């Protein structure tokens, strides 16, 4: 049975015999409001949206709906099943994401660092249910008491008689038994797989080139297309001449679709060549005057005016009035593209009122809906194949890849793969939003905060722009967080750690500034203020200070900086060490991280995520920015939007807090701390405060 055959319409019962072994259905909750998650009606309730099936040959099939895009959660997910079920790891089968999201109980969308933490409780319960009915089935067959039977290594054993039966042999009988709602779960010390590094299942094919990413799909008779779109946001097409494009060998058709001009060809390169040969008179659209500079000016202009209150506690103005010292600073973060290495793409095939889509996505439900809307067919007429993705980072939560593939496919009598160039991917991003953040703190005579303002100028939606600002991990009396949010027509979206990456930069830099204003070591200052507010973060901070030897002697123009943050159910603190060259170049020498993710299911995979998050965050600190000019992105490819390279890698040390608390998120929590840690280190090294990212080395030059 394929995963796509499983749906709530087919399985009204959560368990039972389906002629193919034991089936346990269960429900994984869905994080409401998770970035990019499609809303579904409540009718789904607690109906199953995941299944464990043990077939008569003993293979354990796990059907669930999260996408793998390199984060490794698919392996962790299966490890939880295997351990609780006492199964053989080699017999666990990872099934593809369901292909009919409209027939699924929750919106299929992978984001918010949720796969493991939302799966943790229901998954282990379901695995325990399966284990218990298998044990019961063996006991019945042997006519012994269930308590005498032990589940271990994929079989049930009756110790005193020495008999044993494999899970496959018991699956059919187990399917006829009553399933306990809340069977006993294993205790932490009995885990033999959870918490033990396990090789990721997706990697062997990734080192041989066998892995089929979205762009690697090849179908008989398929065509390839490139879509030329207005460079400016919400711009349009006044007119175009396609005669040169049509003359390019391999081009089979050129036509306008809503929002672009499609060039369809026998291969990708011919489509690109044809598209380059188009002569288009673009309409610059309503935002042609928009630029990063105008936004910055607007942010500064509003900095002194109260905004919409996001959170208020106490009396900020009263607190400031009593302060012995007032500290002011403002911070800017710019638009950032996600830059997945696999550019956006999708393949679609429209035949009458049937549509099939193949897309490397994070959001199958919204992809299917997009395809149905564009094609004007019911959702269930769309077969949506979720392909492995070459990176996501939040970019593939938007279904514009599917959108253009279906638009083109509707006019082509063949499957067609629409490939975005790197330039397309930069030009039509859903960027991390620009922010101008105004900070003001009142300090008492000893230097401790008695009032705190965090004002954010940016673009709606609020969560994407301001996430994390309202609840910093500190005790801050007379707290006010307010916002000025204006729609500039520039597409923004969740970027790995959503909001927290901007707001942590401002809060953790400013806290460092306050510590210096108070004449207190930043570590001591932060520790005292988070003592009551966030004890788990305090623990990370204390650990990282020790591991990094905080305060150790550094050379000339070298320094240490510390930053910490709590988000997506995890806690993290990092110390960065930098050397600033006389010409202003910043070399990050070392990053020490302490993460508290609760229980860690697959430690080596999590370590890899944290290391990679640090790299992505260092690119955001030192290199990357998307400028807007004339309402369009300036950066277009890696020549003007560099990424950190292996040559610039610091030494990275990742430590985990030992924990028996429930698992927290992994992909996003390590993203926010590196930028402020690095900038605080730059201050320690040079006395220059960096308040805008990426770091401008001109500010750090010795003149």
């Amino acid at each position, binding site marked *: 049975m394929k995963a796509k055959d499983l749906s709530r319409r087919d399985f009204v019962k959560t368990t039972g015999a389906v002629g193919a072994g034991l089936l346990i259905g269960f429900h994984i909750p869905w994080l409401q409001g998770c970035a990019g998650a499609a809303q579904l009606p409540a009718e789904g309730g607690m109906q199953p949206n995941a299944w464990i099936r043990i077939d008569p040959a003993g293979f354990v099939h796990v059907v669930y709906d999260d996408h793998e*895009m*390199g*984060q*490794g959660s698919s392996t962790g997910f299966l490890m939880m099943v295997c351990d609780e079920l006492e199964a053989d790891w080699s017999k666990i089968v990872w099934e593809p994401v369901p292909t009919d999201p409209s027939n699924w109980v929750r919106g299929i969308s992978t984001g918010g660092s949720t796969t493991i933490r939302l799966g943790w409780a229901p998954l282990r319960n379901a695995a325990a249910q399966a284990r218990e009915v298998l044990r019961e089935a063996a006991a019945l067959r042997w006519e012994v008491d269930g308590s005498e039977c032990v589940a271990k290594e994929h079989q049930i054993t009756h110790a005193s008689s020495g008999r044993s039966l494999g899970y496959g042999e018991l699956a059919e009988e187990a399917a006829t038994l009553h399933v306990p709602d809340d069977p006993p779960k294993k205790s932490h010390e009995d885990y033999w797989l959870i918490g033990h590094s396990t090789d*990721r299942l*997706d*990697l*062997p094919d*990734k*080192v*041989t*080139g*066998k*892995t*089929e*990413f979205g*762009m*690697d799909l*090849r179908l008989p008779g398929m065509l*390839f297309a490139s879509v030329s779109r207005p460079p400016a946001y919400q711009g349009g097409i006044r007119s175009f001449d396609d005669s040169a494009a049509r003359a390019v*060998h*391999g081009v089979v058709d050129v036509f306008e679709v809503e929002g672009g001009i499609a060039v369809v060809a*026998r*291969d*990708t*390169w*011919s489509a*690109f060549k044809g598209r380059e040969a188009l002569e288009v008179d673009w309409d610059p659209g309503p935002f042609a005057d928009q630029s990063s500079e105008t936004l910055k000016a607007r942010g500064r202009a509003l900095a002194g005016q109260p905004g919409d209150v996001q959170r208020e506690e106490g009396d900020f103005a009263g607190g400031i009035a009593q302060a012995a010292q007032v500290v002011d600073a403002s911070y800017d973060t710019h638009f950032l593209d996600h*830059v*997945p*290495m*696999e*550019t956006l793409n999708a393949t679609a095939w429209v035949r009458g009122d049937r549509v099939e889509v193949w897309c490397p996505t994070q959001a199958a439900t919204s992809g299917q809906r997009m395809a149905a809307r564009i094609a004007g067919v019911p959702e269930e007429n769309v077969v949506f194949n979720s392909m492995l*993705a*070459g*990176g*996501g*980072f939040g970019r593939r939560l938007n279904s514009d890849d599917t959108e253009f593939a279906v638009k083109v496919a509707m006019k082509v009598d063949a499957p067609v793969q629409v*490939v975005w160039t*790197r330039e397309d991917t930069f030009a039509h991003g859903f960027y991390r939003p620009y922010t101008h953040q105004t900070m003001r703190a009142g300090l008492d005579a000893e230097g401790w905060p008695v009032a705190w303002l965090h004002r954010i100028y940016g673009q709606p939606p609020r969560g994407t722009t301001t996430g994390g600002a309202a609840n910093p991990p500190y005790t801050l009396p007379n707290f006010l967080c307010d916002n000025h949010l204006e729609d500039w027509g520039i597409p923004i979206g969740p970027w790995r750690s959503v909001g927290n990456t901007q707001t942590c930069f401002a809060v953790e830099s400013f806290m460092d500034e306050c510590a210096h204003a108070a004449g207190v070591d930043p570590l001591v200052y932060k520790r005292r203020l988070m003592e009551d507010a966030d004890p788990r973060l305090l623990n990370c901070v204390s650990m990282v200070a020790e591991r990094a030897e905080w305060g150790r002697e550094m050379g000339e123009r070298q320094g240490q900086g510390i930053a910490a943050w709590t988000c997506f159910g995890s806690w993290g603190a990092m110390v960065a060490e930098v050397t600033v060259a006389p010409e202003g170049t910043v070399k990050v020498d070392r990053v020490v991280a302490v993460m508290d993710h609760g229980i860690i299911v697959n430690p*080596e*995979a999590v370590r*890899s*995520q944290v*290391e*990679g*998050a*640090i*790299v*992505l965050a260092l690119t955001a600190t030192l290199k990357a920015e998307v400028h807007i000019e004339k309402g369009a992105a300036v950066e277009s*490819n*890696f*020549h003007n939007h560099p*990424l*950190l*390279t*292996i*040559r610039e*890698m610091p030494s*990275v040390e990742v430590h985990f807090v030992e924990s028996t608390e429930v698992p927290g998120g992994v992909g996003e929590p390590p993203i926010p701390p590196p930028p402020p840690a690095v900038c605080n280190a730059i201050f320690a090294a040079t006395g220059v405060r960096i308040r805008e990212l990426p770091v401008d080395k001109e500010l750090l030059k010795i003149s």
Partner: protein
Amino acid sequence: MAVFNLRVNGERMSVDVAPEMPLLWALRDHLGLTGTKYSCGIAFCGSCTVLLDGEPIRSCATSVESVGEGEITTIEGMSKDGGHPLQRAWLAEQTVQCGYCHPGQLLQAAALLEKNPHPSDDEIDEYMAGNLCRCGTYLRIRKAIRRVEEGRI
């Protein structure tokens, strides 16, 4: 259009394409060898790296006609069933996340060790710096190369 008889992974493969077509697209769209990846198209990221007579080249910026009789090695031809020491080392270090840049990373690393079986960290960094990885797997790439260099695989 012209027919080119390429030597790819020890076999003769023929394509009928425009002479200036980048090798990348001939491999991917005409020969079905999709292990070689498109990412930037301007030879700035290394995802499309293949070996030409053992030298790493950016196939997105190398025309089919320029390849001539050169022997092309793609990730599909790096080994039978993933047995190349670097592929095994990549798994031993659990190097990969999304995996998209890694065919290029592996071939670049293979060329490095062919030329310089015992590179220093600086030499590794110098040779690998043109291969970008957005997931940030650089430290593990370095460790995996080191593993092979030290014969620990």
